[in-house]
């Protein structure tokens, strides 16, 4: 029995909602990181008495959060926070900035207990929540001082015992993403705010109380699904799995304001798939797509996917290594996306269900399936006991 595109798109939307952070949890996360920000701002720091800005970056900021899953079990949300000291990086040192944050967090009785070991770039606070869906707050110490909006900031980087500066532009990237997302956002924002205010009137009494960060366009939904699909399909072979930054950037470039998540995925995945020939150094047939140069193969065999806010940064700088292992994994993943998400009308309902269980997670499909796919009135299933199964074969070579 087939499934309609409408039902399927609705199903994907519901799945993405399940993977997303709930409005209640969102509000909790914001109040948690604001407290961290206040605590850091109240600190006394040697040679620094300026302002400290705390703001989210990455998927939490972009509205593309998905709940991580490992070995079939749902894990805590990752929330990335920038902790930006308003000063020139050249006026201080990476190690000093990193430890300002670490030491200040250790002065707090509770944070001290929650603090994980020092990371390469972050300090991580582990919040375990009563409902089991906790989060990791990754605090990224940095220095930034510029009169120009959306300038890069300097983040600290620890290699062995040495600290150095690296450049990053989380606000610039977020602004670029929001721009790509802006038209679709305008179309869906009011309706979604109404619905959220309706369902969560205890925390957002008025429509205007609902923060913009809770709105999700088909682009954001598509990215969430792609991320979960990657996590599931690469389970156990994480090393070459496509990174979120690449899929987010390419999806945002390719999104054409489709009005539902199925159409958005279809467009994005088909255009990604059109780049597959690059693996064999073939040209991209679609000239307009080729001219955009979103994924490039250079004459020396290396690959290029630029950071839209800093073309010098190449997200695919390691794609040529080990016989193009990451490039191959990327296009394999695109092929899986095609088979798992597209061409639904040519597939059977139950085969869609089982495929989605495999690529999005059994429990989440179990939760939303019956809501979105009307079950045909059928009799009880006929019980069959399989005792001597044959092995399937195929005639011809």
């Amino acid at each position: 029995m087939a499934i309609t595109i409408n039902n399927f798109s609705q199903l994907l939307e519901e799945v993405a909602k399940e993977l997303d952070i709930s409005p209640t949890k969102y509000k909790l996360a914001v109040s948690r990181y604001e407290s961290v920000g206040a605590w850091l701002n109240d600190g006394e720091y040697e040679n620094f008495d300026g302002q400290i800005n705390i703001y989210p970056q990455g998927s939490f900021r972009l509205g593309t959060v998905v709940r991580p899953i490992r070995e079939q079990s749902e894990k805590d949300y990752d929330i990335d926070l920038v902790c930006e000291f308003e000063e020139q990086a050249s006026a201080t040192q990476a190690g000093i900035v990193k430890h300002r944050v670490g030491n200040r967090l250790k002065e707090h009785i509770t944070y001290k207990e929650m603090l994980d070991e020092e990371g390469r770039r972050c300090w991580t606070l582990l919040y375990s929540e009563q409902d089991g869906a906790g989060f990791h707050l990754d605090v990224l110490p940095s220095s930034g001082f510029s009169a120009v909006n959306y300038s890069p900031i300097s983040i600290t980087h620890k290699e062995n015992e040495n600290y150095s500066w690296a450049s990053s532009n989380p606000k610039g990237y977020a602004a670029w993403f929001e721009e790509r997302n802006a038209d679709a956002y305008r179309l869906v924002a009011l309706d979604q705010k109404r619905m959220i205010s309706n369902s969560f009137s205890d925390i957002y009494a008025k429509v205007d109380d609902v923060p913009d960060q809770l709105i999700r366009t088909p682009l954001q939904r598509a990215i969430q699904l792609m991320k979960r699909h990657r996590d599931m399909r690469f389970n156990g072979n994480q090393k070459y799995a496509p990174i979120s930054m690449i899929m987010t950037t390419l999806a945002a470039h390719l999104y054409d304001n489709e009005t539902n998540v199925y159409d958005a995925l279809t467009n994005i995945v088909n255009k990604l798939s059109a780049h597959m020939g690059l693996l064999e150094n073939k040209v991209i047939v679609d000239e307009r797509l080729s001219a955009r140069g979103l994924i490039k193969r250079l004459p020396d065999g290396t690959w290029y996917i630029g950071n839209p806010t800093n073309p010098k940064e190449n997200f695919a700088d390691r794609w040529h290594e080990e016989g193009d292992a990451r490039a191959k994994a990327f296009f394999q993943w695109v092929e899986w996306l095609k088979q798992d998400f597209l061409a639904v009308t040519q597939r059977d309902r139950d085969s869609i269900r089982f495929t989605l269980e495999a690529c999005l997670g059994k429990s989440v499909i179990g939760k939303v399936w019956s809501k979105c796919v009307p079950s045909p009135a059928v009799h009880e299933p006929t019980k069959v006991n399989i005792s001597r199964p044959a092995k399937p074969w195929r005639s011809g070579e």
Partner: protein
Amino acid sequence: MNKLIHEQIQAVLDSHPNLWLVQNGSDILLSGSLHFSASVEGKETITANYDVKISVPYSYPRDLPKVFPSGYSLDKRFEHTNPDGSFCLAVPIEERELFELEPSLLGFINNLIVPFLYGYSYFLKYGEHPFGEREHGNKGILDFYLDTFKSRDARTVLTSLHNFAVHGYRAHEKCPCGSGKKVLKCHQTELKSLLKNKELLMADLAKFITR
């Protein structure tokens, strides 16, 4: 339609109420959805519902039905469909053997189609075949005979089978598996079952043995 087949169809309709009979001249088609809950020892029970068309040839039961997905095609990653789009349930002689366990249309559904669809569902969920799979074409056929006698020695299995096929079953001959034992004390059951379908056996052997 003769009475025997009519009774067999009725048994199918009683057991699988979502299938119905479409009759067009001498062709018999069972169409609709196969809604089953299949259990296998040591594996999970899978409940699923697939739309199928089961085409029963005029020459049934000499020839066995073909089964087609109805209104969709199987996932390409699951490679076991025939060029005409029908399910490739098993190599022909194995299909015949399993059919003869319960030689009726209902038996065909429960012993061949449902296990196939169980395997397909399992494959979609976990990316692997719960019962294994055969290679395509002749390799898969050879593999079936080797499997049957739990041997890797194709030459011995095939020449010995050929002798049995030509001269008939003789209990004191050596077993095709290469154990050196008399077949009477070895793979007697397996061999006898193969010899029941001598035509299919000979046709298979002709693919490997040049005269």
